[in-house]
Structures are given as C-alpha cells and as structure tokens.
C-alpha cells in the first residue's frame, strides 16, 4: 500500500514538473532561437527551421553576423545613446519623484491634497494619447543651450529625456513606501533642528532602498524599450537609440536575418542578464504596481 502511494506521489510530482517545463519551453524557445540563429549564416538559419537544429549551436557557427551588423550600422553609437538617455532619465526621475513624494507625505502645505489628486488622475492617461500634441510642443519649445537661444527640441537628447523624468506612477510608488516609514523618526530629526533637505537626504533616502530599486527598474524598462516617441522625434543618426536603430536592418529589400538576430541579441542579452541577476527585485517591482487599485 505504502509503496503504491509513494509511487503515486512521485508520478504526480513528475507530472507537475512536466507541466512547468512545457510552459517554460513556450516562453524560452523564441529567445533561444534568436541567440542560436545569430551565430549561423542566413542560408543555414533558414534551413535549420525544419528541425530541432534551430535551437542548437550546430553547423557553421561563427560571429560573422555580429561583425557584419557592426559594419552595417553604428551600433556602438545606438547603444551609447540608449544607455545615456535611459541612465540620465532614471537618475533624474528618482530624485525628482522621491522629492515630490517626500513633500506629499511628510510636509503639510496648502494645495497638497488637490495637487496629489490631480497627479493620481494622470495615471489614467496613456502616453500614446498625448504623443501627437507633445510632438507639436517639442517642435516649438524654446531652449537655451551652448549655442544660445534656440527654438525646437526635435533631434536632441533632451526631447528623449525631459518629458519622461516625472510621472504619476513613480511618485505614487514613493508615496506608498514613505507612508509606512515611522513618522517619529522624521519628527525627532525636526525637533533636533534638522532642515527638510537634511531629513530627506540623511533620514528618508537611506531607508528607501527597496522603493528606489522598484522605481529605477520600472523606469529603466520603460525608457530602454521606448519606440514610438524616439521614432517620431529623432531622425539624426548620432542620437538614435537602439530600438529605432533596427530600421537599418529591416528597411532592406532582402532582410539579412542573421544580422537582425545578432543585433536583437546584442540589445536584448544585457537586459536579460541584468534581469536574471536582479530577478527578485524586477519581479517585486512589477508586483508593487499592483498596490495601486
């Protein structure tokens, strides 16, 4: 009797794992195919699709697609631009949004309630529904730069950065987190005569590691993966980000699939590696968007 039930349990456990693995295969196979295909010449890449060879590093394996891709497009420039735009936006966003949230949670000022409810209301506005008027704004906004006064933000770094520094969700995440911090700590520092800036810098920020990670990860994913906005406002090659740079490969009469796979691998694998090394933080950050209901 006992032996049979143990067998049963083993069988059931095996079935559970079989389901888990099967689902995992569905999620992994396109990415595996991408990475493996990037190592194969076009001819073999296409013919391998009729067998499991499509997912294996077999046959004529080389890095030739990568060399060819670098020849075809200034990939280094695209990657630099994406890293620069994403990095600056994330840093500015963390500062600006945490500072605003600090004011909303810990300070008492007239207009606070009203402004916060307006901020919450903006959560329902999809970016896609404001990009067209924003495009016109970007074409006419003034700027004072190294060249003096100028009109127009198109084809600049700033048009890719500044509109995305502050957003309702980031501020909201900080507000939720700050609310749970012990208020006595802040009040005690104030009693001792600390300035608000000091309380923000030296008391609250050092306690905010988790929410900073959450906000940074969400902003990073949003910025690095942006497509529609840079497509509209960035024509110049020197400031183009990686997603728009794809056009170099797909706007061909005969799409060089091997090179495409190499390019996709180049722009995806660092993000995947980043994700896998900080997996818990990534998943926690998405889960925390769930508190807003």
């Amino acid at each position, binding site marked *: 009797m006992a032996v049979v039930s143990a067998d049963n349990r083993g069988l059931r456990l095996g079935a559970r794992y079989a389901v888990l693995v099967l689902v995992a295969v569905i999620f992994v196979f396109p990415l595996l195919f991408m990475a493996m295909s990037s190592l194969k010449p076009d001819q073999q890449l296409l013919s391998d699709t009729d067998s499991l060879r499509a997912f294996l590093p077999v046959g004529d394996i080389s890095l030739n697609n990568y060399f060819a891709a670098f020849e075809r497009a200034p990939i280094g420039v695209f990657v630099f631009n994406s890293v620069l735009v994403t990095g600056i936006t994330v840093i500015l966003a963390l500062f600006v949004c945490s500072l605003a949230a600090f004011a909303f949670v810990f300070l008492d000022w007239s207009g606070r309630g009203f402004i916060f409810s307006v901020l919450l209301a903006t959560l329902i506005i*999809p970016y896609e*529904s404001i990009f067209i008027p924003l495009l016109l704004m970007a074409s006419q906004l003034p700027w004072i730069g190294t060249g003096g006064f100028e009109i127009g933000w198109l084809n600049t770094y700033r048009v890719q950065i500044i509109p995305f520094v502050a957003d309702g969700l980031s501020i909201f995440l900080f507000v939720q987190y700050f609310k749970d911090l012990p*208020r006595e700590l802040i009040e005690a520092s104030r009693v001792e005569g600390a300035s608000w800036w000091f309380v923000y810098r030296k008391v609250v920020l050092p306690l905010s590691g988790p929410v900073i990670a959450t906000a940074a990860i969400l902003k990073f994913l949003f910025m690095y993966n942006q497509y529609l906005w840079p497509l509209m406002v960035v024509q110049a090659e020197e400031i183009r980000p990686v997603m728009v740079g794809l056009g170099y490969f797909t706007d061909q009469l005969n799409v060089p699939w091997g090179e495409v796979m190499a390019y996709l691998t180049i722009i995806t694998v660092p993000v995947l590696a980043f994700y896998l090394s900080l997996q818990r933080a990534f998943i926690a950050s*998405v889960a925390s968007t769930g508190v807003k209901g």
Partner: protein
Amino acid sequence: MASKLTRSNRAGWLMALPGTTLIAAFIILPFFLAFAFSLTNQRLASPNPTEYVGLENYRELLGLAFFTLEPERDDAGVVVRDKDGDIKYPRLRKFTRNNPDFPALQGKREWFSWQSGDNRQVVLASDVVFMKALVNTFTFVFVVAPVQAGLALALALLINQKLKGISLFRAIYFMPVVVSIVVVSLLWQFIYSPGDGLLNNILSGITFGLFEPRDWLGNPSTALGSIMAMSIWQGVGFHMVIWLSGLQTISPTLYEAAEIEGASKRQAFRYVTWPGLRNTAVLILIVITMQAFALFAQIDVMTQGGPLDSTQVLVFQAVERGYGKQDISGGSTISVLLFLIVLGISLLQRWLTRERT
C-alpha cells in the same frame, strides 16, 4: 506639536515643484492640447494660420450613414440580373459624389453591406480605415484582456506551488516582459514566416504533417490573431506576477480552515482564493485594457496595418496622421477618442466589479 513641525508651505512647494511642473508641462498640458487641436486644423508646420473648425475632425472620423440600394429594374419593373444571375445594382458612386438629393452620403464610402431580399443594405463611413481601426482595436482588447488575465492567473496558480526550483520557473515565465516589444515583434515576424517558417514547421512536426502551413501575417483572417497571440506571450508574465502577489495576501489559515471543513481543491478556489483576489482582478483588467488599447509597436514592425487594413489600430492611425501626414489635428482627434474610450471602459469595469452590498 506635530503640525508645527510638519507645516511648511515654502519647503513643501519647493520640493514638490520640479515633479509637478514636469508633469503639468509634459503630461497635463499635451493632454488638454489634444482636445484643443482636435477642434482646429493644426498642422505640424504650415504657412497658413490655424483655424477653429468645430467638430469637423470628429465628423470626418466618425461620420456614418445607412443606405438601401435598390436593384436596377427594366421598364416592366423586373429586377435586372447579369449573365450569372446576380442582381444588378446602380453604382454607389452615383449617390455619394455630388448628388444634391443625398447630402448625407456626400464623400462617404462603403464600409460593409449585406443582402436583404432584392435590396442591398449598405453602411457607409466617412473614414473607412478609421472604422476598421476602431473595430480591430476593440477586437484586440476584448480578446486579449480576458484571455491574458485568465492565462496569467493559471500561471500564477501553477507557480504558487511549493516545489523545489519553482523560482527558476517564475523567472523564466517573466522573461519576455523585460524584452522590448519591438524585439519580440521582429522575432515573431520571422517565426510567423509563411511556408517553411518556424511556427509552421513546429505545428506540422507536432501533428505529424497534418497541419497545413499558412501565411500567418499575410492573411487578413489570421494576421490580427497572430499579433494577439504574440502580445499575450510577451505580456502574460507581467500580470502573472500581479496575480501572484494577490494570491500571497490570502491568509494560509483560510486554506487550513477550508481543509478541515473538507473542502475540495475546486471548492477552496471558488470560496477562498477567488473572493480574496477580487481587488487584484479589477486592477489587472484595467491595466491590461489600458495596455491593449495602446497597441502600436507590433503593428508598426510586423504589418503596418495590413493586409487589407486587417490590423489597423487606433494608435497606428493617430501616428500615421499626426506624424506621417503631419496632420496634428487629425492625430489629436484620434488620441482624444482613444483616451475617452480607455476612460469609459475603466469606469465601466469599476462599476461592473463594484462591491455589491
């Protein structure tokens, strides 16, 4: 005491100022500009001054008319048929082009029609492509939202088991979420290749050759469905994680109690799990709906709205006008409609799922 310590108008405003100014300038202002531009003929760059045109843009997009085409009859009043026996109708053009008797049909084109007796019932639209985009977007949302939410819940339940190595599977299921939708679209465009494409080969391999290869993206009847499947593949991990955090807020003592009462697994789900997920369910539906309505990159990369406008969607149309044709007012009008639809559906979802007392 506390109020004196926290009361500070100057510091409060100063600290909130950068964030609120940026949001006011780059989210709230363009939001209202969209409404304003939709009432004008604003272009991205034009030598002519911008004029107020009232609701003209909305009329051009949403104008509909219904018309009954009567068959041609000969002198005896008998219906004329062509040599195949099909009924002959007058050309629709006769009514829609400069016909003073039918001002409501002026400039409109046939959207769809059906037969009723000898007559042909025709629905005409001012902008047929926009109408198709509207229908496709709604189709996309109404299929993707429930299917993706359901699959995400199934995955969350699957991953919520206490098994060795389960966190590895969770990490894998979530992986496509961090990959750009542009990358995913291009990858799947290749997977969906006609003939000897990867998906065709996989499917015919699994069915031992029974499966007929098809042109997934090139065929109007499968193109939108293929994009839906891919979008679900990419996004489902996101909502799985939100379900999962909802699942983990349910107290284990409730399950123990259910077990003591002798509840089956199904009953435990029905009476413990599901009621505990209520708020999560509302949130997930609203989030998926908002994301689904914003569908753009997939279309832009994979089909450009084709074949035969079968994958035209709202944001793609807004961009094609506002950016492609530099028609800011037309693009803004679609943006406003998009926002109103998203708002309406979110409110409706909230109302439908409200707590009933």
